[in-house]
């Protein structure tokens, strides 16, 4: 009961915050649409992904995942703000416990990524012909992709001490994961080492799930992608729970008393 009430409370708060900072939501959507409208238009003329369709069609699932990944992961990483301003301590001091705090945060970050992914998905008719069944399957894939991205963000947040590292996270973690995932160009053209990394990269499986939903060819079957993502989610949740331990890592040294 307390777990449910705490998760609901955390989600209510996070969604209120998100709604009151619309610039962040809009900014989050700018990235995929810039890619879709500007970059993909340019590449459309020179690139042939070798999958039958145009480059714009090829990149569309990748751009959806871009929206989920950045939307969810960055929302989750904003947990670091809470640590800086003491809100995290407040949450961890509640009887509910760290795993519940983590779960609440995962749910709200998932919601943000899901929303952004769905907005991009809604632009599908501009890019390709799409059936209702494909939309529904893609929406399910977006839910899972957002959830896994949220957990990834929480795992990062568990080790992050200050929000100044945000840009670093984006450039050092999220962009490489996106690049080595077959989202923006086929992974089959990568060198063997990167191809191997692509195989264990959760983003690859997110992109493939959306591709399958939209009827595009993939390396692995959807059940294999699902298995990979669920395993990754479990491992990440356990790791993040351990790192969320209020003692030491999350609270750290108490701030020195002010004079």
């Amino acid at each position, binding site marked *: *009961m*307390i777990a449910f*009430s*705490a998760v*609901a*409370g*955390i989600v*209510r*708060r996070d969604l*209120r*915050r998100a709604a*009151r*900072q619309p610039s962040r939501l809009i900014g989050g959507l700018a990235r995929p649409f810039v890619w879709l409208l500007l970059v993909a238009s340019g590449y459309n003329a020179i690139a042939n992904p070798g999958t039958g369709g145009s480059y714009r069609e090829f990149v569309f699932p990748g751009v959806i995942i871009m929206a989920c990944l950045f939307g969810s992961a960055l929302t989750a990483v904003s947990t670091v703000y809470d640590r800086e*301003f*003491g*809100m995290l*301590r*407040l*949450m*961890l*001091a*509640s*009887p*509910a*416990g760290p795993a519940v705090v983590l779960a609440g945060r995962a749910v709200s970050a998932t919601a943000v990524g899901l929303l952004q992914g769905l907005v991009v998905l809604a632009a599908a008719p501009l890019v390709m012909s799409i059936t209702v069944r494909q939309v529904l399957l893609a929406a399910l894939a977006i839910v899972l992709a957002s959830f896994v991205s949220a957990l990834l963000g929480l795992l990062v947040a568990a080790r992050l001490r200050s929000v100044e590292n945000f840009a670093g996270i984006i450039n050092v973690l999220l962009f490489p994961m996106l690049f080595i995932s077959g989202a923006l160009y086929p992974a089959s053209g990568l060198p063997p080492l990167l191809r191997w990394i692509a195989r264990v990269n959760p983003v690859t499986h997110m992109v493939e799930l959306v591709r399958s939903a939209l009827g595009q060819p993939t390396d692995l079957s959807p059940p294999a992608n699902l298995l990979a993502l669920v395993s990754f989610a479990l491992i990440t949740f356990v790791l993040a729970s351990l790192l969320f331990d*209020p*003692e*030491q890592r999350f*609270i750290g*040294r*108490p*701030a*020195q*008393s*002010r*004079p």
Partner: protein
Amino acid sequence: MSEAAVAAEGLGRDYGSTRALDGLTLRVEAGQQVGLLGPNGAGKTTAMLLLATLLRPTRGHARVFGQDVVQERRAARRRLGLVFQEPTVDPFLTVRENLDFAAALAGLDRRQARDAITVALQRMGLVTFAERRARELSGGWRRLADIARATLHAPSLLILDEPTVGLDPEHRAALWHFLDALRRDQGTAVLFSTHYLAEAEGADAVVLLSGGTVVDRGSPAELMRPFGSSVLEVEGPGVPALVSALEGRALAEMLVHTPTGCRIALAAHREQALELAGSVPGITRAVLRQPSLEDVYFARTSASALRGQPV
């Protein structure tokens, strides 16, 4: 007999090789108000985080209403209300939404939460601010909202780490008024730290920490007793001369050096001492007053108070 709000024995915590808190033995009875005093880095915050179940002790153990702060920390947390040094209110949420969030974390259901929030808003005089975003509030109101937040689940023990820091006198008075009312009406025990020592003079007991160890403890009256009935506070280059003159006539009971001068607990003959202070050159300030907890604080905690022993 009812269980103690806090029963700590030899409670200590290290950070690497730094001993933040050495071994704190502390008992706070239900309904008592106890102050932790001491300079920055004395271990007050560490002690409070340990009792708040947010840090794991390196040694010793503690119970909050009989619940071990490590083994039974979830049960202990239900009895605890915490106010940290920095106000923990979300600036993007309204006051009511902040309270709603805290109520959810504490496990109150929707109806309990609504009732508790109504009561807390009224008690703290926050009703007119309820729908305002926290970032629009002044620091004082934000702090009162923070305390309302900590009391929603009717905790039996409130732990407040420097709750009045940076507040104007009105908000400080409102805060203490509220804590006193809470203790009177609900028997809430209060463990607090403060640098405004006068605030601790109304406490049932005071624990003075310095360098991670307890250097003195007792009721404020007990602690001030060695200072007798009056203290002469002097400043200026003539202080050493005045001190030796007073000591020569056996007028000084106890000396406490402070960064700006000297505090002298007087034996009898206050007028004689004051006269002497007027006649010694180089005394820029001389005030005769009753002893305060600040005298005890300087005597027990400052490095400059090496002579703070009875002479």
